[in-house]
């Protein structure tokens, strides 16, 4: 298929999946924190949605890292990225963020699951309770840093591409914002989907809470996508050509107009508004809306990566 090949293509679909997975993880963690502190408050370990987010965030970030490593031409020398740092490299700083994020994420999840851990360790490893006690002493600090790191991780997936001066569509200051927002909404969607699959009540306050945030999030996302392409068109030259190549007729144009704008943004927006207006939240509604959203974000990552490398400066 020629849509997946072009003369100056360097990064292929594994990178799109990596960017997608890192975004999902960051978003899921962000919403898990919000749910715990602003919505559920007590016994967060019993909420299906927080549980889902606590499962999704580590799995996706590990899978993303796995893809990143196997995509290197020297996968076994991955450790060199950890040993040698380059402060001007977005990738180097991103890996640093990713590592600290992963550690803090596990600490935070341990806190949420503390009742289970304490119950188990009482019988088997009593000293483990000292650690969980210490964790809960530092919880506010931990949470604050984790929130900032998850937002940084979401934005990093965009900065990674916007640091490429040779591709006018990628070298765009709006890209990190777009990736952050879509990453957050993919995190919300995956928590909802995971939550209902883990038998969370589809009509619970968590779902209402997330939907209430998702509606403005999708609206802002649409505005940002518009800004992104308007910026390119108004810049003129190769930037304008890049925008036209991406949005015009052909495979990627169809992916954008139908896949991203209709399935990924409009359908979830309409469904969210419908569910809010009628106060009817069924399993199938929630799951279908979340799936559309997730699919949309996955398509957006591929679309930006491939069309971004189509036109050079």
């Amino acid at each position: 298929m020629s849509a997946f090949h072009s003369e100056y293509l360097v990064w292929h679909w594994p990178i799109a999946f990596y960017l997608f997975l890192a975004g999902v993880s960051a978003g899921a963690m962000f919403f898990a924190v919000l749910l715990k502190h602003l919505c559920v408050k007590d016994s967060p370990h019993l909420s299906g949605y927080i549980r889902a987010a606590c499962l999704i965030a580590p799995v996706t970030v590990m899978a993303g890292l796995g893809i990143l490593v196997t995509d290197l031409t020297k996968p076994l020398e991955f450790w060199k990225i950890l040993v040698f740092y380059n402060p001007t490299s977005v990738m180097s700083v991103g890996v640093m963020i990713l590592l600290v994020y992963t550690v803090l994420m596990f600490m935070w999840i341990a806190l949420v699951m503390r009742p289970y851990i304490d119950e188990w360790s009482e019988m088997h490893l009593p000293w483990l309770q000292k650690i969980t006690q210490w964790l809960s002493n530092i919880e506010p600090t931990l949470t604050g840093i984790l929130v900032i790191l998850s937002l940084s991780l979401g934005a990093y997936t965009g900065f990674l591409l916007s640091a490429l001066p040779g591709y006018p569509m990628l070298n765009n200051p709006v890209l990190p914002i777009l990736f952050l927002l879509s990453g957050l909404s993919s995190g919300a969607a995956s928590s909802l989907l995971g939550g209902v699959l883990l038998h969370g009540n589809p009509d619970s306050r968590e779902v209402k809470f997330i939907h209430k945030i998702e509606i403005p999030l999708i609206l802002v996302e649409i505005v940002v996508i518009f800004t992104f392409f308007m910026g390119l068109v108004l810049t003129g030259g190769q930037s304008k050509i890049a925008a036209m190549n991406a949005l015009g007729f052909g495979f990627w144009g169809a992916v954008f107009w139908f896949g991203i704008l209709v399935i990924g943004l409009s359908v979830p927006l309409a469904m969210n508004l419908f569910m809010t207006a009628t106060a009817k939240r069924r399993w199938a509604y929630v799951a279908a809306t979340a799936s559309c959203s997730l699919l949309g974000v996955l398509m957006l990552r591929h679309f930006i990566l491939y069309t971004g490398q189509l036109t050079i400066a």
Partner: protein
Amino acid sequence: MDNIRRQFIKGGTALVAATSLYLLHDAGAQEELPQTKKRYALLHDETKCIGCNACAEACRLTNQVPQEVARLRIERTGPYGEFPDQYYRFTRVSCQHCEEAPCVNVCPTGAANIDRSTGIVSVNSWKCVGCQYCIAACPYHIRFINPVTHAADKCDFCKETNLREGKQPACVMACPTGALMFGDLEDPHSKIVAALNSQPVYRAKEDLGTHPKLFRIRAKAGEVSL
């Protein structure tokens, strides 16, 4: 709750402060860079170039570049003009040894580097993990993965071969028409500085702010007739 919020903010502030300190530290470090002693550059006189490819072949031989990839290519465009006065243009495609090199900026391990004493951009193939970020970042699209070493590779002005032996780069030595000139921009008496000062030259994609050090003299109509 108030206490919790304060701690929460404290954690966040600490992180932001640490990051800014880190960035400041980096900014300070860059100002203290020692002056580069040499600043090697190359001039390709497109009016003299006949597209014979001797430079590319010499490069391959000297630097043992595998067949399926190339550090240096001569790109032919045209023919231009009306028959029988037709001619081709030849453009050198190779690393421009940018002073603000995007490939160096993005490399996570520092494998892609600028040699401080010569201004030559090269790759430490041992440090390279093959993430291909530099290949995507180079606006001139001249980097590639070497199929033997699995590391990123490109022209290094023969830093490890001819320069080490005190010779000119292989392409310069091989060129039958003297279309290539190599020299030090820091030396005001060098031939290349004189050549750059005495005629109009251009560089590719200068608007990207990369400060390339591959200079070119534009081919004029009718230089190479068919």
